[in-house]
């Protein structure tokens, strides 16, 4: 039966890890603007990228 307890601990730790990641992402403002990044993703080859490649 100890295997169930072990599995339980593992599953809760992993889930807890995801929860912590979620809390962090909300706190750091990643959900503040959910609209602009969807547009931004289509802009490849921007000047910013060029500069980074040159560096």
């Amino acid at each position, binding site marked *: *039966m100890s295997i*169930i*307890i072990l599995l*339980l601990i593992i*599953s*809760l730790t992993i*889930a*807890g890890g*995801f*929860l912590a990641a*979620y*809390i962090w992402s*909300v*706190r750091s*403002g990643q*959900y*503040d*603007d959910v*609209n*602009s990044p969807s*547009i*931004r993703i*289509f*802009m490849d*080859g*921007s*000047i*910013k990228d060029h500069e980074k490649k040159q560096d």
Partner: protein
Amino acid sequence: MPEIAIKENTIKQICFHCGEICQSNSYVKDDHHFCCNGCKTVFELLSENGLENYYLFDKSPGVTVISGPRRSHYKYLDEEKIRQGLLSFSSPNHSAVRLMLPTIHCSSCIWLLENLHTLNKGILNVSVNFSEKIAKIDFDPKSIALSELAETLQMIGYPPSLEWNKNKKPSKSNHEKQTALKIGIAGFCFGNIMLLSFPEYLGFTGVNNQQLKLLFSYLSMLLALPIVFYCSQHYFRSALKSLRAGFLNIDVPISLGIATLFLRSVYEVVFTVGNGYFDSLAGLLFFLLIGKWLQERTYSGLSFERDYKSYFPISVYKIDESEVQSAIPLEQIEIGDRLFIRNQELIPADARLLSDTASIDYGFVTGEAIPVNLMKGDQLYAGGRLLGKGIQIIIERRVAQSYLTELWNNKAFRKNGNHLSGKLINKVSRYFTLVIISLALLAAAYWLMVDSSKMWAVVTSILIVACPCALALSVPFTLSNAMFVLGKINCFVKNTDVIEDLYDVDTIVFDKTGTITEDSANGVKFVGSNLTKKELQGVLTLANNSSHPISRLIVSHLQVTINPLSDRLSGYCEQQGSGIEAIFENNTFRLGSINWVKDKLAIKDEGSNRTFLSINGEYRGYFDFGVKYRKGLKQLIDSLSTKYQLFILSGDNDKERNALSKLNIPIECMRFHQSPHDKLAFVEELQKNGKNIMMIGDGLNDAGALKQSDVGVAVTNDCNAFTPASDVIMLGNKLMDILWILKLARFARFIIIGCFILSFLYNIIGLSFAVTGNLSPVLAAILMPVSSISVLLMATASIKIFAYIKHRTS
């Protein structure tokens, strides 16, 4: 004239930058056509700096560059006080500012703005929030001043809107973040508790199962702690608040349910009687929080709460005794101050004109498109926009005491929007709570006599199963879906409560100018001797040179049939407040006021909204700007008048009375010469007679009435333009959908009631188990999610179908 014929037959070019139709072929660069010099300049500037990609993402992404204020206009931004007020971060090498750029409209805008650093090395980083139209700009104050930054933005077509109290607000409030966190945590706990409860559902039997069972129960309890003590805090708080106010709102039975669920479950686990209902508890909170989040979603990019401060610039130029100009913040304006107002600036407070002439556009205040010409010594009202040469004014009243801004001192603007008792859900919950509590008491009395050991179990079961989860979900899901559907047709609602208010509307008050009428070239007509095509062309070319609103109206009226010929025009001159003059193919054209044309024939035609024309000194007639009612207005009024009482209020004179009386509105329901205060008082008077009023208006002159009414609808032609504080912002061309919007509100109410009935049915099933003492945790865990999800589906699907039917039929 073969040459002209050719020109007229060529297909009109579309401006490569902004997509406007090009009026002439004079602005060409690299095979691209432009409508004006401004657009061409932006193109040149961008291509010189390797930013041509701007044109790749969208076709004609730019904004027509209006020859707006120059650098000197933004000079005041460098005044230390104003600068500090705007910056969100400031150090010697690094400053940050959040600027609202209302012209942001497409993906190219984001791209261009976020690559601004290639235009000016002083700009370090720009990040754009598209939906809120806000750019967060980091820059180096040593190499670029704030005024220079504003000027750069203005030059490429993104003039920042610099109004009071607007630019510093953080994008998302802490409250919204809290809700997001609560949902996440509730979801986490819900999932894990469900997992731990599975053995119980499936009748788990194993070796040592007693110990494991205990472990699972305690773990569930542990996971339920954040749910009760963090996620459901606001329900307890709101319930306490409403109890103190002597009122039973929906949060009372919810809190009661949560508390009993938790306490009974803890008791069961600690005394090893059972496994408790932690799974139901977590699921309940998870769904409730999603409903809450949906209900609180709003259109963050739109502003519904504007007061007069947000209309005015943050500073003005004061002239002191030694004729020196200095920028002072708006609130420091005193009576007797001499101010300098530039082209396109607003008059901040009631004042008197010191310069000789001025042309003031009160469109902002009255909705009237035609500017007023004023002479030295005339009274100026706050909110008027200056057209043309700069003027000096002397202040007669403070900003807050001015004719227009005084409206905001009215109590209508202080009323608290949060009226607890009116909402349907709270009306229902009052009876619901009483019924549940009396039912619990009756059951308690019965079981006390029959089998007292079972009493507590039954009472708690009743409170648990009666927890109005589905009831509480029906309103947010129905209304937020209705709000979303309305948003799709460009009608933006402040929050979900407004849709409930719409249901109660029985009286509709329309403003006239700008609401049921529209500013368009269709109303323009020329009265006088017939003009030849050549002459019309001359008038068009002449008017095309002026940015005055009247000229623009004439241009849009004439350009439907002919093209301007800019290269044949010479000697153009414009006299502010009088008119314009130029020579077109050896003929002198004059267009303007009666004094400008100076002709006896013209005098007899004098009228308020007329612009006169003379060619070579000979009077030819005038342009009349008639009122144009919106298309479909008659049908709208006809269909509305069967159900609602209609009124029309107009700030104008009553010369339109005859035209309006053709509509199906009794003459006594039309009021003319209404001041902003009259409109407010009128709405208030109707409300005293027990009417629920929907006020539809546009200008600042309706601001008081909009605020006072039960539902204030601001009609605008551009959602980002200034709209007075209101509950609904809608595009002018959607006015004809008012009837459908009201129908949707009725339908939403109908659906909510349907959901209530559905959830009562579930409650009755649950209660029948509970009163007999047979409610098992499994049953509770099945009943609760099933009732929530079915209500959720019913609310969402029915509203969507309703909108789809409208979509199909129109």
